[in-house]
């Protein structure tokens, strides 16, 4: 399995002689970057449209209905064109260098994290033994981007947003990592493809949440921490449009502003996918099982795996939107209380219980 980059493997036999190995590596890297950027853009486009429709239906409205014909599907494209042509404003008192740097750091960290996400069992950008660890590490980098944006804007609302983000990160980073340890104990690997493969029994329904009750409890803790990690309501304190104008985004406009939202929606998909991989079966489902029976490891099976992952990712995004438009925002002290007093002990207990359960299973069977 450990044979490097899938794109490299695909391109290598096709490349003419004069290109050389080095040329293939560079081409594969460029294609990989292109694919990641395209995926991030498409996810952001679909999610923004989905968010508008979901919020509208929760509030008994229609949402966008005209642009593009069918239920306003092209609304996000129209918005994108508008944002591209909008004036790029930088406030006079802002720290220009950091103000311009922060969206790049945010998106760069997200792309690096996305590179560790396999799209199908045989299609990944690199075989990372530490896949999920890498995703967690690079998504923690996005915090710095947010804090940088807030500080560089030189506005009190932005600074408050940045302060809240920093305080929030310290509170939820520990339950996020610790609750993930429970399924990692069951899986015995950090690699996402291997973890998904471990859940293939019981006709593709041997998900870790069904195998171990403590993992099921940990999945709730993890999902709450993911909400805080992606700055989604009820944890959208850094943005808090009804309190801080737009929090750390207040001074941003045009395409820079839209970069922040691209990051937010792609991070939502990424973290939903991680939740799917380590709690809800990853690529595995009864459909995947049937596809594997029918096609073996062929292209049909890979496509079904990709579709399963996409469905699970968007199911997670839908759940996040549902929560956002249903629950009121927490106060910052409530976020702290939740992170320190409730989520951390519960996550620790889940790890202990999951370990004991696995040990007992090992001892008895």
């Amino acid at each position, binding site marked *: 399995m450990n044979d490097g980059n899938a794109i490299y493997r695909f391109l290598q036999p096709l490349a003419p002689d004069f290109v050389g190995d080095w040329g293939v590596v560079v081409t594969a890297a460029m294609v990989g970057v292109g694919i990641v950027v395209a995926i991030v853009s498409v996810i952001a486009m679909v999610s923004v449209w989905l968010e508008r429709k979901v919020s509208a239906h929760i509030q008994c409205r229609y949402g966008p209905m005209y642009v593009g014909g069918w239920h306003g599907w092209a609304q996000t494209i129209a918005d994108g064109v508008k944002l591209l042509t909008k004036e790029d404003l930088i406030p006079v008192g802002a720290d220009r260098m950091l103000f311009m740097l922060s969206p790049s750091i945010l998106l760069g960290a997200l792309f690096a994290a996305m590179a560790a996400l396999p799209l199908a069992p045989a299609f990944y950008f690199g075989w990372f033994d530490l896949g999920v*660890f*890498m995703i967690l590490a690079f998504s923690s980098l996005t915090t*710095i981007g947010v*804090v940088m944006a807030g500080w560089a804007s030189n506005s009190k609302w932005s*600074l408050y947003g940045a302060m809240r983000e*920093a305080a929030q990160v310290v509170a939820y980073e520990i339950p996020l990592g610790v609750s993930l340890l429970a399924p990692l104990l069951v899986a015995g*690997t950090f690699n996402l493809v291997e973890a998904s493969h471990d859940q293939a029994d019981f006709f593709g329904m041997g998900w870790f949440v069904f195998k171990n009750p403590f993992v099921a409890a940990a999945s709730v803790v993890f999902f709450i921490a993911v909400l805080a990690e992606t700055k989604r309501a009820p944890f959208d304190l850094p943005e808090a449009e009804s309190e801080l104008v737009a929090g750390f985004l207040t001074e941003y406009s045009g395409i820079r502003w839209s970069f922040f939202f691209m990051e937010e929606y792609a991070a939502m998909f990424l973290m939903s996918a991680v939740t799917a991989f380590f709690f809800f079966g990853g690529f595995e489902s009864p459909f995947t099982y049937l596809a594997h029976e029918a096609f073996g490891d062929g292209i049909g099976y890979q496509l079904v795996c990709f579709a399963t992952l996409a469905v699970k990712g968007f199911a997670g995004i839908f759940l996040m939107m549902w929560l956002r438009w249903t629950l009121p925002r927490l106060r910052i002290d409530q976020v702290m209380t939740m992170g320190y007093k409730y989520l951390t002990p519960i996550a620790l207990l889940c790890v202990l219980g999951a370990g004991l359960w696995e040990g007992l299973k090992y001892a008895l069977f």
Partner: protein
Amino acid sequence: MDVRKQQLTFYTLLLVATLAALAWGTRTAGTQGAAFALFASFTLGGGLMCIWERSVVRSAFSLMATFCGVAGLFVLLGHDYLAMAQILIYVGGILVLILFGVMLTPPDLKERQLPRVGLGVVLVLGTLLAVGAKVAATVEWARADTLPQIESRADYIGAAFLRAEDGYLVPFELAAVLLTVALVAAVYIARRKPSDLVDPAEEGGY
């Protein structure tokens, strides 16, 4: 010199140094050398920026380049786990805490005292060169091609770490106990004592 010119000179010099390092690395060791030069310039450049910038927050942000550069050096050495832990702990944890601490400080707008900075740089560089020359002359350097191959898989690291006969189980547990004691002590010191909780009505209200 005004501040703008100073900044421009400093960053131009930094860029030139980075490009020179890149060229030198590529010439001596190909792609690996270029990657090493890039990460080394990130590490050192971040450190220099941290000293140079007058705003404490900017200094803190420049530490990010240093931490990421060190992580890149770990990757070059084949230690993916250390690299990721470096990013997760230093950038995602410690740097956020530092920023949280210094975010509300204003930039120091006093004129930069260049002679003092120059003296500091000369002293530090002189010491570094003296010590570095001594180290380079005396230490027998380990070379990547003579070292044993390292598996950077998580299960390998975990097994080596917690092995019963020559593992590090006891130090690991001791470190965990020490950290718990430190956490509990911090909470004890920071907690609200009954004497802090004065009823606002008694104080004359807000």
